[in-house]
């Protein structure tokens, strides 16, 4: 064992330690509650979208499966929770659980379609699946309410205790709590051998079978997990908005999600969260300033970010950190 003595194993052995910056990050939602008490709905939706984005990050950022149809799972989750609540089963946590199961099943089944082909093929197959789901929901107007939306959702208090209120306090803590728990799980996942093997698949899918790794099995698994995450996010949105309409399945939602993830920096969990925060805040602020033409400024923001910070916000932050390190002569 002399060999190992010569080597400092810390970088790999302690990769999963919670760093101070992470703890600080998780103070943001607490602080935000007090600083922006009047924007809780926005903050709630940011948390939900962040969870949705996290789910895409798992499959894209870690496993390298590009998807332009992730809204399929989000929407299915939303309808699952929405229909439950509209038919008298309004307990939120049960709604989440059912949404997770239903979407996981769909995720597992469709994962076999997604395994084939390269990026563009996957992009289009995921898109095709989600568009078909959209059309089905549109067809089944009697059940889903179609474009006009699902009528009559009654969501019960969370844990039987906390009513959803006009200010959105309950909704906020509920969404943040779910986000945190699932983030924690995702974090475990990406630091595990499973997470490492996903990275391996993303970086060189051709080599993994020669290392004895069942690539398709791994991809199926992570796709299923990602689907369940997205389903939960959808369910959260349905419950906190108390309304579901067809747009939960729309192409725009999938595309915007991809955008958010890339903006944040795919392949890092915090990238997903930061991307959501930056994108949705920018959207909100800009559209308040200029309801008609805000898209121009948002577009410009995206372009500038790509030009100056590769790998999105996370990439930019890493760059800044490197420069700081260099400036202060620190070495990693």
């Amino acid at each position: 064992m002399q060999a190992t003595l010569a080597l400092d194993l810390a970088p790999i052995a302690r990769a999963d330690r919670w760093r101070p910056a992470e703890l600080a990050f998780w103070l943001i939602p607490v602080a935000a509650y007090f600083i922006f008490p009047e924007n809780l709905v926005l903050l709630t939706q940011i948390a939900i979208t962040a969870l949705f984005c996290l789910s895409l990050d798992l499959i894209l950022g870690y496993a390298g499966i590009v998807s332009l149809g992730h809204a399929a799972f989000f929407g299915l989750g939303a309808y699952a929770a929405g229909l439950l609540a509209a038919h008298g089963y309004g307990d939120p946590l049960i709604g989440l659980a059912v949404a997770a199961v239903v979407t996981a099943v769909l995720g597992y089944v469709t994962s076999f379609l997604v395994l084939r082909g390269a990026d563009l093929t996957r992009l289009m197959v995921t898109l095709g699946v989600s568009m078909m789901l959209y059309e089905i929901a549109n067809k089944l107007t009697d059940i889903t309410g179609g474009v006009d939306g699902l009528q009559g959702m009654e969501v019960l208090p969370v844990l039987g205790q906390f009513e959803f209120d006009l200010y959105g306090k309950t909704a906020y803590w509920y969404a943040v709590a779910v986000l945190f728990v699932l983030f924690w799980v995702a974090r475990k996942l990406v630091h595990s051998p499973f997470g490492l093997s996903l990275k391996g698949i993303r970086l060189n899918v051709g080599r993994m079978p020669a290392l004895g790794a069942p690539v398709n099995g791994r991809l199926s698994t992570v796709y299923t997990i990602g689907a369940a995450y997205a389903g939960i996010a959808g369910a959260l949105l349905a419950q906190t908005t108390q309304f579901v309409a067809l747009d939960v399945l729309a192409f725009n939602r999938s595309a915007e999600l991809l955008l958010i993830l890339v903006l944040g920096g795919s392949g890092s969990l915090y990238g997903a969260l930061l991307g959501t925060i930056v994108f949705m805040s920018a959207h909100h602020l800009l559209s308040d300033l200029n309801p008609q033409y805000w898209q121009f400024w948002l577009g410009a923001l995206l372009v500038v970010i790509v030009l100056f910070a590769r790998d999105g916000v996370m990439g930019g932050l890493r760059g800044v950190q490197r420069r700081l390190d260099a400036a202060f002569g620190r070495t990693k």
Partner: protein
Amino acid sequence: MTTYALQTRNLVKKFGGFVATNDVSLNVEAGARHALIGPNGAGKTTLINLLTGFLEPTSGDVILNGEPVTHLAQHQRVKRGLARTFQINRLFADLTVLESVTMAVNERIGIGARFWRPIGAYAEAVDEAAQLLATLRLLDLAHEKTRNLAYGKQRLIEIALALAMKPRVLLLDEPAAGVPTSESRELFETIAALPRDVTILLIEHDMDLVFRFADQISVLVSGALLTGGTPDEIAVNPKVKEVYLGEAISV
């Protein structure tokens, strides 16, 4: 009766109309140091690809330790002890050297799908990976990203990944290409020092290495087996000299 670690029966591979592997029936004895030589484009790499399941044969069979594996997926063959290196590096550019090798070890010992505990919690895998790096003298690069290494070092990682499989049959496709002469000798010493029950099939164009290392040589020409035998037999075979060796070996 000799036992064969690896056999092919009438293996054929066609690319469109082009026959890359032409009715090859090859026997590799258990524990052999078997070299496969032949001109460029003779179909050596294709043969390895067929053996490992990287390519599907057009017809014929692959038999590993007496069992047909022709229709098994690549990773299933690996699980049965068949590992390989690639002629052109296939590495994980953004992983560190240690991560890459740890990942390989994880897969071998069957913890590749564990998702709850962190990588570092499986110390036995990390330790084994570090050991392996030490044997290949890569320890000081353990935390470097693969992409930042020079070609020759990457070559070594290619081999480390295969060794991490603790294979019973190891297929090496020009392992020493791009490794400087001095280091390729050490490399071969490492490979030669593998337990005798590990069977090795080697493709190599460096005849010094081949003749020092191999106890059996098969010659492949235009997709078909030309001949086989001990190094001494091959070295004096006029046909082999004509199509492949030229003046490389002066016995």
